[in-house]
């Protein structure tokens, strides 16, 4: 795509993002359910960590630290729309093939829509998650600068989740059902990203292995910022997220090229 074509496409992508944002606002029940889910998970884990801390099993950490860690990791996991379900539905209904002649590539248009939806989710879920963090964490972490940095890093982390969801959705072209792939991706994110337990709790070998995966940069990276601001670590996490987002974008573009060939071969 030339520079001129790109500049022409920008308003179209913005329009797709606005469409995604509007759709997100329209799905109030889903948003409310997600907000409630944040509250439930924080309630459960505030109890888990209270039980662990009352036995003095995790020195140097407070309940607020650990609950706020989950506030950040859950924000990432709940803020991206389930793009894989939309791609799968488009494939089944034939909409995907119908949209191929449009000037904006299907995958890019869907990504722009998801980015718009993600922005709305983040805007609405963040105040709720922070409030729950303060209530269930019995306060706020000692260093609020870390929380601010964590919130900034949530955005590129959620972008990485959107790219992952797009790649998973495109897998439906070959597998016909993307949900099983999503389940595995989600649980790998739980286990290797440290969704509920910070990686410092993990056995050393597993934590070291997890840090080489995109999941750790996506969840543990922003999450551990609430333990206290460390400029060097924050820059490292930002760099890792940039790298994984670029790698994810390249992978989705490559997958889309393969998908196009598969669709042309099979006739849609």
């Amino acid at each position, binding site marked *: 795509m030339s520079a001129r074509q790109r500049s022409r496409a920008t308003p179209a992508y913005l329009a797709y993002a606005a469409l995604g944002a509007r759709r997100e606002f329209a799905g109030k*029940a*889903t948003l*409310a*359910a997600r907000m*409630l*889910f944040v509250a*439930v*998970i924080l*309630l*459960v884990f505030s*109890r*888990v960590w209270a*039980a*662990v801390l009352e*036995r003095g*099993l995790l020195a140097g950490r407070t309940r607020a630290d650990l609950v706020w860690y989950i506030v950040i990791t859950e924000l990432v996991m709940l803020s991206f729309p389930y793009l894989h379900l939309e791609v799968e539905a488009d494939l089944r209904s034939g909409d995907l093939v119908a949209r191929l002649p449009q000037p904006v590539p299907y995958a890019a248009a869907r990504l722009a829509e998801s980015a718009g939806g993600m922005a709305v989710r983040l805007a609405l879920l963040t105040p709720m998650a922070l409030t729950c963090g303060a209530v269930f964490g019995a306060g706020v972490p000692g260093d609020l600068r870390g929380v601010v940095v964590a919130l900034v890093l949530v955005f590129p982390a959620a972008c990485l989740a959107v790219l992952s969801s797009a790649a998973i959705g495109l897998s439906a072209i070959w*597998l*016909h*059902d993307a*949900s*099983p*792939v999503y*389940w*595995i991706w*989600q*649980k*790998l994110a*739980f*286990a290797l990203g440290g*969704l*509920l*337990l910070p990686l410092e*709790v*993990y*056995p050393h070998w*597993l934590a070291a292995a997890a840090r080489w995966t995109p999941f750790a940069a996506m969840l543990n990276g922003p999450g551990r910022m609430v333990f206290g601001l460390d400029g060097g670590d924050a820059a490292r996490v930002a760099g890792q997220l940039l790298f994984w987002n670029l790698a994810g974008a390249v992978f989705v573009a490559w997958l889309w090229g393969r998908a196009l060939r598969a669709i042309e071969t099979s006739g849609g």
Partner: protein
Amino acid sequence: MRREPAIGGLRYASALVTTNLKASLALRGAFWLQASFMLLNNVTFFVTWLIFFHRFNEVRGWRLDDMLVLFAVVAGGYGLFNVLAGGALQLARAIGDGDLDPILVQPRPPLLQIVASRSTASGWGDLATGVIFLSLATRSHLAAAPLGLAAIVASAVVFTASAVLLQSLAFWLGRIEVVARQMLEFQITFGLYPSSLFGGALRVVLYTAIPAGFVGYLPAEFVRTASLPALAALFAGTAFFVALALVVFHRGLRVYESGSRFGGVW
């Protein structure tokens, strides 16, 4: 005389379930993909608990084996529910769309037709998780294995009753599919954590409004202790939720408004 309708109903239910299972298995590739990935999904999720108990050993009296039993009962119960009674999850949408018409004109009990109308392949993955985790948890005391299977069945019955109860609220409240699904998700979420973490008012909620206690804690307690009081409480709780679901569904049918549809989702 009185037994005939019950036997006929059972025969009809088993025929429906068999048909659904055949339909699931007809798409063999999709069936195995969903079932095996759900099993893998559950095992990966449990890794978090392995890590947790490896580091902290116990939390308020709960150890890894206790978590294995709890996870086995909840996953197995939810799996069995999805395999045999997955149609319950479509009830609110059907009520909202006025799609119950084709069911209501048939001679068989409508609720039976609805709940047994769907079987999901991923449910087999959950059920397999339940059986595998249960065999791991009871490896040193095999006598507990039959209790575990009974606990899974009880959990599945309460899952079905809860789904019918929540989805039937659509008779009065309209489009509540998302909320009903989310409430069931909460039941699973709470059910997968040690009961000793929750006390006071929250504990009451977990045995009433969100009956996580009856799909997880109590059946797991029955397997762990093999005690008669746990069995009695489990039986009473299960019977109560089944009765409540039946009453709410049939009351709801009285206010059901037809969608005047000739075809249907069933």
